[in-house]
């Protein structure tokens, strides 16, 4: 039985048994049964089914169009992939165990290798055949004590290639080092013995010279940790910034001089007799605190305010000579998509997002210590997953790649349905709308060799076609996105919808 048939047959089995067998004590169908029952009417849910497989491999993906000779290297992606253990299905998309995907572009074509990340949690729960630990948004029965963040680390958000190491990142614990060739999980990576198990966010910022900055939130201690790492991967310094009340910031930005972190009013408040996400309370009437921190002296910092908002992801930041910080990000009015939508999808409910993110530009004047924001995209044009040419990271930039969807011409699935190269100065858009049966994932800008920053290059991104039950990868000419992919490589199986990746050029 090949992978595709396996997915079909397990889905069908779930539908058959879903009506009667998998019932909770209170009479409600289990999340596993509810999800399978919904799959029939909402075939796009296939992307959230998850997998029991430890690995996927394809030596030669089916190629359509022309893949450019100048594109050589590997797209490493990460995302939650195992959503069920035994009869238990997680109650949040972000709880699934991480799986790293490698799409390799060589002279011989495109190969694919996916492999589950061997976190201690994944290994122990696989042996036990049941969930052993509480998750981000799930509390299975009879869990074991959590002795530190890494006992619940699922390493499922993003990838980092830095200092000669390939790392799989979560946001509340240590990175996991991955063998770039075999995708074997080597070990937890500690930048020093003292920093073992200290939160390291999934969105570090790397300057063009390789200097890396990151942060991590420590909810129980009301702290944000700051990391400064040199291009070789050595810890230069770490700092602690007290932040109370504390939220769960997911991304941040860095300029030549400053670190900027938004602390939105989604506060960690209640004793965690519930799951971690449910211990947070959204306060739309309160401001978003904006922390502006001197890179060279973490004690030299100030706070200003923006309206309540939720920004999962930023594009980039830079700072002019006068001391005005400019940055851009996908701003939502609330974290509803995380609090509600990514829960609902796990039991096959209708996924709503009344507060979709759309790209905004921000300015912080470090002289007057004020912040302001301006919408770049109109209401009705949603966007997320901003990406830049890495060569302009922390420097002045003009363009971001984003996924978008336009109200009124929306695809019949709740996810974003288009890829757009967005001019953040003038708002110009170069957009390709995916076919209705395809769900695009994060798309990255990959520069053409020898090109000037933000000029020639490719936009590379994966997608799930739920009708044909195949995952594919598209390559666009970055100078003409609207004309569609110049080349496509397709696998004959479904890779669970994931989150973030990095393209590592050969």
């Amino acid at each position: 039985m090949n992978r595709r048939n396996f997915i079909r047959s397990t889905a069908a089995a779930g539908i058959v048994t879903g009506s009667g067998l998998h019932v909770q004590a209170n009479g409600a169908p289990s999340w596993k049964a509810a999800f399978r029952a919904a799959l029939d009417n909402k075939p796009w849910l296939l992307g959230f089914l998850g997998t029991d497989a430890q690995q996927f491999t394809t030596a030669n993906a089916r190629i359509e169009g022309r893949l450019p000779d100048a594109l050589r290297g590997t797209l490493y992606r990460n995302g939650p992939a195992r959503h069920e253990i035994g009869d238990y299905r997680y109650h949040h998309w972000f709880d699934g165990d991480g799986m790293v995907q490698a799409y390799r572009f060589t002279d011989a074509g495109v190969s694919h290798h996916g492999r589950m990340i061997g976190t201690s949690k994944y290994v122990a729960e696989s042996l036990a055949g049941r969930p052993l630990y509480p998750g981000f948004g799930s509390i299975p029965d009879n869990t074991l004590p959590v002795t530190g963040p890494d006992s619940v680390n699922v390493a499922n958000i993003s990838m980092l290639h830095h200092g000669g190491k390939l790392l799989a990142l979560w946001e509340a614990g240590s990175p996991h080092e991955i063998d770039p060739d075999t995708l074997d999980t080597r070990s937890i990576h500690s930048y020093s013995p003292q920093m073992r198990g200290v939160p390291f966010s999934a969105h570090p910022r790397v300057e063009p010279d390789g200097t890396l900055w990151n942060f991590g939130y420590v909810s129980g201690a009301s702290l944000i940790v700051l990391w400064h790492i040199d291009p070789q991967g050595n810890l230069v310094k770490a700092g602690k910034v007290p932040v109370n009340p504390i939220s769960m910031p997911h991304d941040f930005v860095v300029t030549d001089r400053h670190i900027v972190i938004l602390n939105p009013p989604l506060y960690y408040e209640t004793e965690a007799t519930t799951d971690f996400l449910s211990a947070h309370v959204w306060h739309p009437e309160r401001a978003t605190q904006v922390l502006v921190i001197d890179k060279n002296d973490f004690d030299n910092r100030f706070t200003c305010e923006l309206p309540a908002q939720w920004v999962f992801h930023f594009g980039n930041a830079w700072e002019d000579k006068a001391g005005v910080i400019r940055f851009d990000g996908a701003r939502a009015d609330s974290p509803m998509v995380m609090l509600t939508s990514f829960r609902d999808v796990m039991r096959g409910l209708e996924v709503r997002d009344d507060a979709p993110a759309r790209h905004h530009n921000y300015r912080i004047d470090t002289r007057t210590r004020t912040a302001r924001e301006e919408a770049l995209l109109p209401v009705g044009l949603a966007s997320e997953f901003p990406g830049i040419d890495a060569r302009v990271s922390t420097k002045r930039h003009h363009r971001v790649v984003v996924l978008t969807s336009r109200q009124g011409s929306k695809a019949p699935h709740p996810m974003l349905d288009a890829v757009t190269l967005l001019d953040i100065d003038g708002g110009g858009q170069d957009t390709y709308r995916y076919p209705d049966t395809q769900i695009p994932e994060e798309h990255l800008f990959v520069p053409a060799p020898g090109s000037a920053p933000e000029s020639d290059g490719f936009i590379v991104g994966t997608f799930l076609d739920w009708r044909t039950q195949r995952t594919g990868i598209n390559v666009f000419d970055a100078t003409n996105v609207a004309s569609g992919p110049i080349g496509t490589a397709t696998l004959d199986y479904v890779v669970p919808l994931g989150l973030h990746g990095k393209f590592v050029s050969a």
Partner: protein
Amino acid sequence: MYRMPALFCLVVIPLTASAAAETLDVQISDVRATTGNVMIAIVAGADGFADKTQPIASLILPARGDTVAFTTNALPAGEYAIRVMHDVNGNGELDANFVGVPTEPYGFSNDASGSFGPPKWEAARFSIGADGAVQRITLNH
């Protein structure tokens, strides 16, 4: 199992202990490293558990096997809790990382656990009554 006469190790024993003492039988398991000492503090009351007052009794037992155990009849009937740490490197402290998460094994009576910090007194307390008390503690790693 490594067992030793605990009374010799008690560094603080209430003077009234001998009058109406009952037996406390403690076993600590999943002691993985065979270096350093297993350090045990027996406390009375929430203040003692929060380290605001001195332990009623403390013991230091060498880590020489998977399990360490002791019994004592030096404690009068009452409510107690136990904190255990395995000082693997022998520096006399429970080592912690940059943000205070322990990097050496530890445990509590009732195998109580907290979220983002130690458990509460209410979760770790137990009574020594007429029948004494038994505590089986598994170290967290």
